[in-house]
C-alpha cells in the first residue's frame, strides 16, 4: 500500500484499474515508468480464499445466492451494482439510465461475460455507410495490430470465419457446443440465421506459464482462481507487478479531480481515501483516466479551473455527450424435446459456446444498425430462484399445474435443462442529446457533485428490438420450442431494457479530429491538455453491435505506446 501523503512525482497516474487502466498499467510500467494506480474500491484477487466465490455451493450462502446483496447474486464477483449506497446519481425526469459501477481492483472485468469481439471495418466508419452518427478518426487497420497483440497476450477462443465485418484473430480453439446449443444450431439453420463458435476470453489452452487453463466450472462471473479467464487484475496488473514494474496501488481511493497548472496542464489528481475520509493529492506528469466512460467524464467535469472553466477537456462542451449503451432484449422458450434429460456435467465455460454475429443488411431493413445473438440454457447449478413456478410448463403438455408432494420432485427433474433463451445485443446510434452532466445540486457522501443522466431511445432502437423479437420467435419456434411470455409491444418499447442495463456505456469523451466536436484526438489525448488521456470506453465514437472490452484494451495499448513515444520525443 502506497503512502497517502506521497510527495513523489509519478510519471503517470492511472485512475481506475479495469480493462483500460489495467492495460495502461501493464504497458507503461513495462516501459520503466513510475506508475500510481488509483482505484476507488478494494484490492481484489479471485484466488484469495477470503474473496473467492468460485466453486462455492448455493448453500454456502444463507440466501442461496439471491440478489438482495449483489445485483447478479451473492457469488458474482462484482462489488457494486446499479445502486451504491452513498454514491447516488440522478436522472432528468422522463428519461432513463441505470448506471452500473464496480469499485474494486479490476473493476467490471471481474464479472463480465468475456465476450471478446473485435470491431470490424464498418464499425469505425458507419456514418459513411448510413449517414448516421459519426465516423471514427481511425479505422480498423489502425487498431488491428493491437487487437492481434491483445489476442496473444490475454487469450480468446474463436474460429476463423472470414466474415466481412467480424474480423478473425489469433484464436484458441473453442469448446464443443452443449446439447441445447446443438438445438440452436439446427433451429437457426432452418430459418437462415448463421451460428458460429463464440469468441470469449477463457483459456481453453495454455498461453503461458503464469495462468491456468479452464477447468470448465462455468463460473467466470465469479472470477477465476487459476486466472484462466480475463480480468484486468489477474491478467494485466498482477503480471506487471510480478515483472518488477514500479507500480504503487492506491485502493479505496476515490478521485475527485485532475489538478491543472497555470498553463492548463495536469499536475496530478486529488482523491478521497475511503479509509479515513480525508482528501489527498498525488503529483504526476501524465494523467490517464480509466475510471469508466461516465466516471471519467464526471472527473473531467468536476476538474474546473481558471484555464478550464467548463471542466477539463470540455472547451467543446462535449464531455458527457454522446453517451450510448448497447440495446438489449431477450426471450425464453420451453423445449419439450429437452424434457427428462440424462444428467451429466455440462457446465462448460461461463456463458455461451456459440453465437450469431449480425448477419443481415440494414439497407433492406427499417432500422439502421445490427445486433448479435447470445444463446443460453442448460443444466446449471441451482441457486435462489431454482424451482420457482416449478411446473407451470405443464400447461404446455396438457398436465396439471401446481400441487404439492412427490409429484413436484418428478416435475423438477422433468423440466431441468428444458428452458433456453436468446438475448439480442445491438448498436444504438450515438446522439449528442443523450448525455450525462453534473447535477447542479446533489453531491455524494464524499462531497463530490454527482452525475445526472438524460437518455432516451429513438425509433432506430425500438424497431431494432422489434426485429430482435421476431428473430427470437423464428429461431425458438424452429427448435420446437414453446415460447414463454408475451411478445412485448410498442407500449413496452418492444422489450428494450433501460439504457445502462447492458453495461456497455461508451462515448462520453469521444475522439475526433475537430476539437470543437470531440474531447480527445485519435490517440485518446485531450485536445485541451496534452498530458491527459482517457483509455476507457469514453473515447468511442460509436459502439458497434459488439461488446466494447476488446476494443478498450486494444485502444488503451495503442494509446500507451503513443504516450511512450511522445515521452521519448519529449513532446509531453
Amino acid at each position: 500500500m502506497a503512502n497517502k501523503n506521497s510527495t513523489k512525482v509519478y510519471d503517470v497516474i492511472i485512475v481506475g484499474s479495469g480493462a483500460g487502466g489495467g492495460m495502461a498499467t501493464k504497458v507503461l510500467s513495462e516501459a520503466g515508468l513510475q506508475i500510481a494506480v488509483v482505484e476507488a474500491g478494494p484490492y481484489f484477487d479471485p484466488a484469495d480464499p477470503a474473496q473467492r466465490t468460485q466453486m462455492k455451493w448455493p448453500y454456502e450462502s444463507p440466501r442461496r445466492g439471491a440478489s438482495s446483496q449483489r445485483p447478479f447474486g451473492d457469488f458474482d464477483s462484482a462489488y457494486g451494482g446499479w445502486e451504491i449506497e452513498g454514491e447516488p446519481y440522478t436522472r432528468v425526469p422522463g428519461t432513463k439510465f441505470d448506471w452500473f459501477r464496480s469499485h474494486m481492483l479490476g473493476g467490471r472485468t471481474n464479472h463480465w461475460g468475456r465476450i471478446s469481439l473485435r470491431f470490424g471495418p464498418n464499425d469505425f466508419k458507419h456514418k459513411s455507410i448510413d449517414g448516421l452518427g459519426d465516423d471514427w478518426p481511425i479505422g480498423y487497420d489502425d487498431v488491428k495490430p493491437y487487437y492481434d497483440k491483445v489476442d496473444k497476450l490475454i487469450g480468446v477462443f474463436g474460429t476463423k470465419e472470414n466474415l466481412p465485418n467480424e474480423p478473425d484473430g489469433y484464436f484458441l480453439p473453442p469448446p464443443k457446443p452443449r446439447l441445447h446449443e446443438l438445438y440452436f444450431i439446427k433451429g437457426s439453420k432452418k430459418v437462415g440465421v448463421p451460428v458460429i463458435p463464440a469468441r470469449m476470453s477463457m483459456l481453453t489452452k495454455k498461453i503461458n506459464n503464469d495462468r491456468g487453463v479452464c477447468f470448465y466450472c462455468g463460473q467466470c462471473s465469479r472470477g477465476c482462481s487459476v486466472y484462466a479467464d480475463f480480468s484486468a487484475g489477474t491478467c494485466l496488473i498482477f503480471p506487471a507487478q510480478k515483472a518488477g514494474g514500479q507500480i504503487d496501488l492506491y485502493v479505496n481511493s476515490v478521485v475527485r479531480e485532475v489538478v491543472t497548472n497555470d498553463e492548463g496542464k495536469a499536475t496530478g489528481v486529488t482523491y478521497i481515501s475511503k479509509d479515513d475520509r480525508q482528501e489527498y493529492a498525488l503529483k504526476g506528469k501524465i494523467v490517464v483516466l480509466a475510471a469508466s466512460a461516465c466516471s471519467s467524464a464526471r472527473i473531467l467535469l468536476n476538474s474546473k479551473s481558471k484555464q478550464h472553466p467548463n471542466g477539463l477537456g470540455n472547451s467543446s462542451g462535449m464531455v458527457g455527450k454522446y453517451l450510448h449503451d448497447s440495446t438489449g432484449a431477450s426471450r425464453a422458450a420451453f423445449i419439450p424435446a429437452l424434457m427428462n434429460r440424462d444428467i451429466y456435467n455440462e457446465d462448460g465455460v461461463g456463458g455461451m459456446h456459440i453465437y450469431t454475429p449480425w448477419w443481415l443488411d440494414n439497407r433492406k431493413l427499417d432500422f439502421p444498425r445490427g445486433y448479435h445473438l447470445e444463446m443460453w440454457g442448460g443444466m446449471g447449478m441451482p441457486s435462489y430462484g431454482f424451482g420457482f413456478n416449478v411446473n407451470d410448463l405443464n400447461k404446455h403438455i396438457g398436465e396439471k399445474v401446481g400441487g404439492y408432494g412427490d409429484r413436484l420432485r418428478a416435475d423438477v427433474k422433468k423440466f431441468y435443462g428444458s428452458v433456453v433463451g436468446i438475448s439480442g445485443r445491438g448498436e444504438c446510434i450515438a446522439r449528442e442529446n443523450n448525455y450525462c452532466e453534473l447535477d447542479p445540486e446533489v453531491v455524494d457522501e464524499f462531497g463530490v457533485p454527482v452525475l445526472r443522466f438524460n437518455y432516451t431511445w429513438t425509433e432506430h432502437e425500438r424497431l431494432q428490438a422489434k426485429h430482435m423479437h421476431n428473430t427470437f420467435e423464428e429461431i425458438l419456434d424452429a427448435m420446437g420450442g414453446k415460447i414463454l411470455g408475451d411478445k412485448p409491444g410498442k407500449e413496452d418499447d418492444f422489450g428494450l431494457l433501460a439504457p445502462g442495463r447492458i453495461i456497455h456505456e461508451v462515448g462520453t469523451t469521444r475522439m475526433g479530429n475537430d476539437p470543437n466536436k470531440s474531447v480527445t484526438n485519435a490517440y485518446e489525448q485531450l485536445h485541451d491538455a496534452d498530458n491527459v488521456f482517457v483509455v476507457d470506453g469514453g473515447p468511442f465514437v460509436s459502439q458497434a453491435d459488439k461488446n466494447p472490452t476488446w476494443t478498450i484494451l486494444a485502444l488503451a495499448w495503442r494509446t500507451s505506446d503513443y504516450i511512450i513515444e511522445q515521452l521519448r520525443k519529449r513532446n509531453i
Partner: protein
Amino acid sequence: MDRRDTIKTMLVGSLAGGIILSACQPDADEKKKSGEDSDGQYGRTEKEKAHDLKVMGETFFNEHEVATIAVLCDLILPASASAGSAVDAGVPEFISFIARDIQSHQLPLRGGMMWLDHEATKRFSQAFILCSVDQQKQLLDTIAYPEDASPESAQGVKFFNLMRNLVLTGYYTSRMGIDDLGYQGNTPNTWDGVPDTVLSKHGLAYEQEWLAKCIDQEKRAVIAEWDAEGNLVN
C-alpha cells in the same frame, strides 16, 4: 513475495499446471455428499459480513408461524424413498432467513399464514397446524392448483405459490436437494462435448467441420503458438 503471489503459485501449481484435479477424488466426493465442503466463507466484503450477522441476529416469525412453515414444508416436499423432506434439508431455517433478508416476503407470508388459519378455523374450527393431515390436504387442494381454484381462494393461491416457490428453491439449493436433482457440475473437469448416447437419443450429431475447429483436449496444456496468419500451429 506477497500473499497474492503465494496463493497464485499454490493454485497454479495444484490446479492448472496442466493436470486438473480429478473430478472423482474420493475425499472431495465424501465431503460433497455430507455437505461439509464449506469453509464458512463465501467471499464476503466486511460490509456484507456485517449485514449477514445483523440479519441472522433478527427474528421475524413468531413460534406459531415457525411451526406453520414447518408443517407446510413437509406437506409440499415430504421425504421420498431416496431423499429427505424439506424439513430434513433445513428449508424452514432458510425461509426464516430469506424473509428477513428479502423483506418484501414478510407481509405476504405472515398474512398468508393468517389467511390459512382463518380458512382452517372456518372449516375445521382450529388452526391449520392443529388440523389432521387429511384436513390440511383438503384445504391445500383448494389453493394448490391455480387453474382449478375458485375466485374466492385467489389470495390463498397467491400465498401458496410463494410458499411452494420458497420451499422448492430452499430444498434444491441444499446439499440434499442437489443430490436428489443429480446436478453433476461445480467440479473441475474437461468438457469434451455431449456424450454420444445423449446425442443419439436426441437424433443429433456434431458436424465434422465444426468439430474440427474445437479444442483437442489432449493439447490443452501445450502453450499456444500461431503462424503469421493467425493459424494455431499446435
